[in-house]
């Protein structure tokens, strides 16, 4: 998660500045790196390498979860959220703008080496979609669901499956805070039974399902499943657009570190959350898009040098996700590096005297290898 975070972090730094509508700075070098376009819809190649600002209230509304840890710390330090506009994100946005929503949902897989900005690209796209009024289903890190789970309950719904009440309730809470208005509008289409006595009737707003899941931890995972299914069916009909944004999608097809009471290992299908998510990621519905990221950092039992889809997804995952549109995310180009460095300078993040010189910049570029995460870590103590 951290490298995603760092990538996001640095990308965010490249964010906007509040220069009023003028992209070309009037003699001030600082403004070169910033753009005033805070709507991702209007980002074009002209804005490449520049940072745009997201107002803090929007950040809280759109990203209750999902921003990398380091980026969140940076937002707190600098009191603003800046995301860099980079080529992969622009590519994705172009695809999304031009996609036909009556066709089945297209799957995009963002991949790249560690710390290059995959999660930040995802967040950029999520921001765009939320601005456009889509319903965003953002799973911050699928790896969280397959490891370090304290409680595993046997599912009441299906015999073999295992529930994860903690993770499910956390996710439901965040989901609720980001998509309030949708939850009131969308109605359920079936009657759902939660145990013997409680049930949700047909036609009730989806918010009730979420409330139910939050109130009763036991049925949280089932609530998640219900939500996912409803959303899938209804976006098929076309009343709203649905974006499924999954970070660390390779967790869905890997191995888990969890084990049952008799110490036998748990495979991902046996987890309710994972099972439902897999159904979401299949492209048998239309009216939206699926954007996923591969992540090596949180992945289990995979070598650290693996970053291609084939290696990280494994055969099963690759077949399940095939066909998809791969979007590679490289390290910073020299221009992007300049703008990131300029942003740090401007916010006085680099305090060391040598770091302010040209030589210092060359040194930073060499030592970090233009990798956003490395640059962020290097610039920290300076």
């Amino acid at each position, binding site marked *: 998660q951290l490298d995603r975070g760092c990538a996001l972090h640095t990308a965010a730094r490249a964010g906007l500045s509040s220069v009023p509508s003028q992209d070309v700075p009037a003699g001030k070098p600082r403004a070169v790196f910033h753009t005033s376009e805070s709507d991702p819809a209007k980002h074009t190649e002209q804005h490449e390498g520049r940072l745009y600002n997201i107002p803090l209230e929007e950040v809280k509304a759109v990203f209750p979860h999902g921003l990398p840890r380091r980026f969140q710390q940076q937002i707190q330090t600098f009191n603003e959220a800046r995301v860099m506009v980079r080529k992969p994100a622009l590519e994705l946005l172009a695809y999304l703008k031009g996609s036909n929503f009556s066709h089945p949902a297209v799957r995009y897989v963002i991949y790249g080496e560690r710390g290059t900005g995959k999660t930040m690209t995802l967040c950029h796209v999520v921001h765009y979609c939320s601005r456009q009024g889509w319903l965003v289903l953002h799973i911050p890190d699928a790896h969280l669901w397959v490891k370090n789970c304290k409680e595993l309950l046997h599912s009441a719904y299906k015999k073999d499956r295992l529930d994860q009440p903690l993770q499910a309730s956390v996710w439901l809470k965040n989901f609720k805070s980001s998509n309030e208005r949708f939850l009131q509008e969308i109605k359920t289409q079936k009657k759902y039974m939660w145990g013997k006595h409680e049930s949700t009737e047909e036609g009730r707003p989806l918010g009730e399902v979420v409330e139910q899941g939050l109130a009763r931890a036991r049925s949280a995972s089932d609530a998640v499943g219900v939500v996912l299914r409803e959303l899938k069916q209804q976006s098929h009909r076309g009343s709203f657009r649905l974006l499924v944004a999954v970070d660390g999608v390779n967790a869905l097809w890997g191995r888990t570190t969890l084990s049952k009471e008799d110490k036998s290992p748990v495979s991902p299908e046996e987890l309710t959350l994972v099972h439902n998510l897999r159904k979401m990621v299949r492209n048998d519905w239309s009216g939206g898009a699926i954007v996923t990221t591969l992540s090596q950092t949180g992945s289990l039992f995979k070598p650290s*040098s693996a970053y291609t889809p084939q290696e990280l997804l494994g055969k099963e995952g690759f077949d399940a996700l095939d066909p998809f549109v791969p979007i590679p995310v490289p390290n910073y180009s020299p221009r992007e590096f300049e703008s990131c460095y300029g942003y740090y300078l401007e916010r006085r993040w680099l305090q060391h005297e040598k770091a302010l010189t040209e*030589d210092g910049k*060359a*040194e930073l*570029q*060499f*030592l970090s*290898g233009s*990798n956003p995460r*490395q640059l962020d870590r*290097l610039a920290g103590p300076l």
Partner: protein
Amino acid sequence: LRLICTTAAVQRKNAGASGPEKYTEAFIKKQIEEFNLGKRHLANMMGEDPETFTQEDIDRAIAYLFPSGLFDERARPVMKHPTEIFPEQRKIQWGEDGRPFHFLFYTGKQSYYSLMHETYEKLLNVQKHQDQLIAQDLPLQKEKRNLAGSRWLTKIELEEMLLEKVSDDDYSRFIQLLQKLVALPCADIEEKYIQKFSKEVPVQLQKVVIEPLQYDERGVAFSTGEGRRKTASATAIVYDNGTGKITVNGIDILHYFPVLQDREQLLFPFQFLGRIGKHDMVCTVSGGGRSSQAGAIRLASAKALRSFVTEKEVEFMRQAGLLTLDPRVKERKKPGQEGPRRKFTWKKR
């Protein structure tokens, strides 16, 4: 060995034989005969011609027959002429009737004082010659000796030459006398005598040869360098007109050296010369661990960069320690101790 009564002046600590045993002439002669015989045997063993078997051949043969992994050269097996092994010693300095041969024997430092007398005699000679030249109104020759490339004998060398102990005071007086002699304009007469007491000093820098740049097919200049550090050895090829990309064994440095410290080591030569983004580098490295591989590549790249850079900067690099091979290797564990230095825990009982 028969113990011989010699004067106390013969005992000196610079030569190898420091014990009370001294060697008789007969003993030395016998050793020489044995050595020659052994030399012929060795030549036969190695299949070479006994007549033309030189000292170098002997050394090679001994190194082959008795391979030794000891670090100190002096501890390895050696077969040399007895005069080189047994230190010179003074013959008996008095006759059968007890009268000493040398007239300065009773001063205690006979060779030293005789040397001083001789040198002073030469000095007087030069002064006389100078007076003669002035009397004849001939120009005095003024050819400066090259003092920069030569040095006087050290005290130990002087002791070896005189076969007796020389104190610091005496040594300095002798050197002062020599300098006084050399300072005179007509000292060229006694040049031969003076050369006995001076030695050539090889200048450090002249030994190092910097290779010229080579050019590959595309016309880009490049140069190679090799480096080693603690069982890791590396070769580096530095190309000109580059972007600062560095590849190690085909892998980018970000992946090969995930630790910042190693990358800083690689950065150091380029940063020192101020050429961070100007060169590309391709290296191969093997052996050692993470840190020693980084050090080896650093040395190799510094050596390769010498060809791109002026001599003054090469001197700066040398003084910064970029071009020096790091001699530290893992020290051997000794018996009776737990490690190279650590002793076993001492228990009182």
